[in-house]
């Protein structure tokens, strides 16, 4: 079956997707179809979409870190120039060991996105042409986009800030005033008195 923009789009696309087992689909808007499926069946879906439904454009691969579930969520955004629908295919893979298959052989742009995700999340894609560093070549910390990496704390530890001593501040301090709240103070959660007691 080949999709055409004139046919009843949502029905035929859903009919096509029935070939994938364990797949749930949901129309979020007339041009956005969310698909949740098992990680093993994703290559089959992608092959199906590209081969039979004209989804030739890989718009992006997004990665979301869910440390509580110990999972990475990968979202493949695929667009079809023919039927003008964007399919967002969501899969979950375990954070450990954090390895998944590359779709480079089907979509060339995947190389960039997979490399980026590898750099930022430490998720390895088997079969991707280049998993070398691209942006973070001078970075030897943990993959920064992982939730457990607290960028702000790292920055506070790594850098000093300007210690401004302007004349007006000295005058005010001489009169007994001065800085009461620094911007860093309001960013911290206030301590709760009952936590101290216990």
């Amino acid at each position, binding site marked *: 079956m080949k999709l055409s923009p004139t046919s009843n789009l949502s029905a035929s696309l859903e009919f096509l997707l029935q070939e994938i087992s364990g797949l749930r689909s949901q129309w979020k808007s007339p041009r956005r179809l969310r698909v949740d499926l098992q990680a093993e069946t994703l290559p089959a879906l992608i092959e199906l979409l590209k081969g039979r439904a004209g989804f030739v454009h890989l718009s992006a691969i997004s990665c979301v870190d869910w440390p509580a579930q110990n999972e990475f969520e990968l979202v493949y955004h695929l667009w079809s120039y023919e039927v003008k629908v964007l399919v967002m295919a969501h899969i979950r893979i375990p954070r450990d060991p954090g390895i998944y298959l590359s779709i480079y052989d089907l979509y060339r742009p995947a190389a960039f996105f997979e490399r980026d995700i590898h750099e930022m999340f430490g998720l390895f894609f088997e079969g991707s042409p280049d998993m070398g560093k691209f942006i973070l070549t001078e970075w030897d910390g943990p993959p920064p986009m992982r939730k457990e990496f607290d960028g702000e704390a790292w920055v506070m530890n790594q*850098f*000093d800030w300007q210690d401004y001593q302007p004349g007006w501040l000295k005058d005010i301090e001489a009169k007994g005033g001065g800085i009461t709240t620094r911007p860093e103070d309001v960013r911290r959660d206030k301590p709760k008195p009952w936590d101290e007691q216990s």
Partner: protein
Amino acid sequence: MSTLKNIPVVSHEKPSGGTGNLLANVFDELMAFCRSRSLFMLHYCTGCGAIELPPAMTSRFDMERLGIQPMVTPRQADILLVTGYVSTKTLKRIILTYEQMNSPKYVIGICSCTVNGGMYWQSYATAKKLNDYLPVDMYIAGCMPRPEAVIHGLRELMENIKKGESDNWRDYYRRYDHYLGNQQRLFGENWQTPTDIIGEARHYDLMGPETLGPHTALLEQHQTPLKPFEMTLGLADLPVRKDEPR
């Protein structure tokens, strides 16, 4: 560069007191005047503030009427314009570039980011205070500053140069240990640049009390002698990727 010794050393210290020859400083002042009227600005877009430089350079705000024009090579540039945030990766290149520039040289930090981190104060990827790593001559406030503000800052810099007040480039030699220490803190102990700042400081009589210190000692410990520069970038190791359409 082996001809370094042949370059005459010019003393930039003004003779103290007014007892000397009235004409003694005339040459220096003329030099300073001329210098201030032909500044070459290194064409390096380090951050987002660079977007306001093309308007400043071209017809509308016309930097060239001040004698300032972009220069593509650091070897001939006088001004290093750091246009906004500098990521760690860029900062390394900026320091290399700065050290390659010929003295006297001036650094202008524009935008908030060069002062105290700016917008990206939380970012793990950017350096926060430019003056930790390089001596800065002029700051221009804004995020980003308008071309008028940039030109205003450049005029201030010209004025300072004419008066002989802008000589922070010496500071880099005199307090090299300080700058190197901050660089090492950010880039790691093994950090070294191909320019021999200590040697140049000795040669040009620019040694200061803080030229040498614990950080330069660390540098001497870690540094590997510069080998004759092989023209290789390690590209051979990387897979050559030429996607053929199927």
